[in-house]
């Protein structure tokens, strides 16, 4: 999902999922990230909510993030097939004050990997967010546990975040975008290589023809 280049300026459009159990703060995270605002009172997300975030990544790259904030309630998981497709990355959120939502986050990650993957067959980059960190502290044991979980479950990293106090919101998103861009570059390179191979083959066949 990336736009064309013009005079060295590239614009990308990426679809990013925001998933995790009900009530862990997905919508709050998105609102903080997109509008830099925090709302004590937010509607329960029904189905999916959309937001856009435009990032001027560097002087020649603009990234448009299409954020899909997906309702966390379990009974709707059947719809995830529809909502997940063609996404480039994911923020998987859990609530640090509610331990069971971490298990939930791992389930979401599992489901994500079973529904979408990169062209090369690898999982799409996903960041684990330990949200509501303003309400509690990560102890060292937890930190190493999360580190281990990330490796085991294939997250590219994890962040303690607080949408309320605006902690690590931009950082986590930036980290994800960086990986998405890398993946994108790699896949562009792979495509170019494939094209070159094709061209070579073509020119070979052409030369034999002539």
């Amino acid at each position, binding site marked *: 999902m990336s736009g064309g280049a013009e005079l060295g300026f590239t614009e990308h459009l990426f679809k990013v999922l925001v998933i995790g159990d009900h009530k862990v703060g997905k919508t709050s995270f998105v609102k903080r990230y997109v509008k830099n605002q925090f709302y004590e*009172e937010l*509607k*329960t997300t*029904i189905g999916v909510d*959309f937001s856009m975030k435009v990032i001027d990544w560097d002087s020649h790259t603009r990234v*448009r993030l299409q954020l899909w904030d997906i309702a966390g*309630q*379990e*009974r709707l998981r*059947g719809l995830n097939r529809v909502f997940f497709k063609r996404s480039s990355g994911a923020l998987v959120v859990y609530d640090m004050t509610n331990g069971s939502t971490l298990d939930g986050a791992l389930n979401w990650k599992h489901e994500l990997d079973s529904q979408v993957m990169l062209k090369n067959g690898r999982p799409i980059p996903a960041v684990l967010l330990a949200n509501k960190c303003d309400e509690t502290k990560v102890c060292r044991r937890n930190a190493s546990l999360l580190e281990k979980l990330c490796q085991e479950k294939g997250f590219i990293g994890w962040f303690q975040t607080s949408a309320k106090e605006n902690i690590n919101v931009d950082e986590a998103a930036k980290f994800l975008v960086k990986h998405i861009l890398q993946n994108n570059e790699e896949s562009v390179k792979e495509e170019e290589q494939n094209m070159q191979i094709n061209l070579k083959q073509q020119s070979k066949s052409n030369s034999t023809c002539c």
Partner: protein
Amino acid sequence: MATDNRIHFWRRNPKVPGSLQPVYGAQHPPLDPRRHRLLKDAPKVSSVNTKSKKPSTFHEFARSTNDAWDIDDEEDDSVFSLKQLSSSPVQSQYMPQTPRLKIIKTPEDTEPLPPSLDRQEPISTNPSQERLDIERGPANGRVVKSSSDAQLNVNAARNTLQKQQSLPVRPIIPLVARISDQNASGAPLMMVREKTRLDKFKQLLASPNTDLEELRKHSWSGIPREVRPVTWRLLSGYLPANRERRDLVLQRKREEYFGFIEQYYHSRTDENHRDTYRQVNLNPRYCLVFQVFERILFIWAIRHPASGYVQGINDLVTPFFVVFLSEFVEEDVENFEMASLPLDTQRNIEADSFWCMSKLLDGIQDNYTFAQPGIQIKVKALEELVSRIDEDVHVHFQKCEVEYLQFAFRWMNNLLMRELPLRCTIRLWDTYQAESEGFSHFHLYVCSAFLIKWRKEILSMVDFQSLLMLLQNLPTIHWGNEEVGLLLAEAYRLKYMFADAPSHYKR
């Protein structure tokens, strides 16, 4: 079922997961529960175990109900707008959308409204009473007396007496001002017409046996505010058409509801109910209204283990609550405090809201069971219908890769409540309760009409993002009765065209 012999346009697509359950409510005339008891009982096994359900929390419920009237416009002076007193420190933070119900603060440690001390013995079932298939929860073995046949005769004699004694005198404050359509205030001709309409309603309601057909006919195009509460009770099937029986039924049902509270509510922290309660629990509890909603939703959830608590259900309490509250509130609700009402009145509003919401949900239960098959079917049906009535819009969606599920799930799940101001939802529900299968069936046509209403805006959006942004934030904030009326007229036209001849119009 009365409706089984009709071809249902939206039931034709079987390609959705989950089981399709019969719709046996939300239709008119409301089905006689006695005839359908077996059907109703079938899925309700004797267990109240709701452990496996994952309803959402009450905290969320509170949030979402707050936003049910997320209107910022100052000129919204409708009697139905609610203003919430931001009553606790937790609440004092920035709130983007101020709900307008002024809610009285109660101490944080306030226990939920206790059943009133002077409450009389629950009145027993009379023979024609809808049997309430209460699952006797393992909670405490206490039994709701009103279902007990043994009490029948004993209480029958008392009924007359209690009818006279125990119903509180309801301080009905007539809503003198603005009986007319809010869009037509000031137009004398309209005032006269509205007055005539109101008289007609009053006449129907006052007759010994209200002609429900006639009442529906008149309600379709909107119910005058003064008579809306009683009309809604009648149309939902909660109140009997027989005028003499009404007080008695009301009293019995209210007692019954508080019987449930007595029987179940203390068990909310028991192992087998804890999950359910956690989902509907508001913490910290800081206001009366949230406690009311919490009780209603908890009781509903444990009595409906097949669905439990589902996001969206909480929204559906609001219109009932607000309409029943409006009976006691004058024009100025800004300064209204629920706690200023007599306790009995508060309790009546709560019980009536519970029963009417239950009646509504009975008719759309497959919206809220596992995988929400009802919703998925309806979204598919919407897509199919739109593809026939407005190909441009349909093709445009396809071109921009917009899927109906992405925006219409919410339309179905919350009955457009998230898309319309609360006053419009209330007006819409006048018609839904007057229309046969309004909530379960006619809503599809309303959604179609609603979508097509924005066709110009839709077609002007060039990509997925802008389309979804539009569809998720449709500018209805200034809508009133007139817009809803037009919407309903168009929906009716669509229904007339497509409902009974789906194949004929198939592309």
